[in-house]
């Protein structure tokens, strides 16, 4: 493994968004977001404008990485679900398909039981979307049709970024 790049295409992005939109309603949650294990925000729905989602994504990934480290120390593969209970709002964090983190923010108008149940169902569907996505990007890379935006990048383009 050198540096595999994670790619998201429009079609899958829409599918993912539809799915977490539905989960938001079914779980009666306030906000849901998806983060990759390296802390990059993939998508978010609900009251996202109220929160600093970039920071939330980075800290969530740090949290999952730290608890993953703990898990390994006691001989577990990972802790696939984390739950943080606050006075008003709670966070349900789970790992989907081994590589993506699903975060559900909810308050007293929902319950941990309901969130867990709905997340479980949605996770299976999300897993298959991400699996499909991985295959698609592998294939595109193999056949060189990835339409990669940086293939033609010049030194000048890069210098312009720092002006």
């Amino acid at each position, binding site marked *: 493994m*050198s*540096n595999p790049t994670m790619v998201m295409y429009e079609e899958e992005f829409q599918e993912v968004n539809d799915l977490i939109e539905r989960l938001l309603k079914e779980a009666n949650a306030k906000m849901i977001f998806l983060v990759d294990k390296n802390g990059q925000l993939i998508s978010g729905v609900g009251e996202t404008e109220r929160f600093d989602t970039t920071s939330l994504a*980075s800290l969530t990934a740090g949290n999952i990485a730290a608890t993953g480290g703990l898990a390994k120390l006691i001989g577990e593969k990972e802790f696939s679900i984390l739950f943080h209970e606050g006075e008003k709002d709670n966070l349900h964090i789970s790992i989907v398909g081994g590589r993506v983190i699903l975060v559900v923010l909810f308050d007293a108008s929902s319950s941990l039981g309901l969130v867990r149940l709905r997340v479980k169902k949605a996770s299976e569907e999300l897993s298959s979307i991400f699996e499909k996505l991985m295959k698609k990007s592998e294939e595109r890379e193999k056949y060189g049709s990835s339409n990669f*935006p940086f293939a033609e990048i010049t030194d000048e383009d*890069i210098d312009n970024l720092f002006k």
Partner: protein
Amino acid sequence: MSFINYASREINCKIVYYGPGLCGKTTNLQFIYQNTAPDARGKMISLATETERTLFFDFLPLSLGEVRGFKTRFHLYTVPGQIFYDASRKLILKGVDGVVFVADSQEERIDANIESYENLRINLKEQGYDLDKLPFIIQYNKRDLPGAMSVVELHRELNITDVPEFEACAATGEGVFETLKAVAKLILLDLKKGK
């Protein structure tokens, strides 16, 4: 591991600042934060102890503008430099796209620099990376201090693979943006090469 989102037309990359304790990794990020336009940066997060030593990491998201219609975002992280936080350091390196090694130029810190450099190589290897294949920059920090070694000596001790190197004084900001720019450039060129 960069993340390319064709739907929102964004590219996200991760840069890690590595180095021995108190070499100035957090100071680098603080200077960048203070000297970047508010609309180009997010909040800087520092998970630090009460005495302001980095406990887990510092995080600073930057958006640099567009390249070929894609928004480029860089996520800057520091590791905790103190030796006993090694487990945390390994975690931060996951998914890294480029590394800046911040060396402390003071003569009495040369052993700490070398130890940290070797630790970086080992920890990357554990994650499946080869330092020699990653975009990698060395910054000689604290050039203003009276006990600073010469760049020639530092180069001989630390820059074994002859990567781009920069002199800096992170407290005043000298060399900070030059370092960032250099590593960002290497990452983007690496992305181009990879396809």
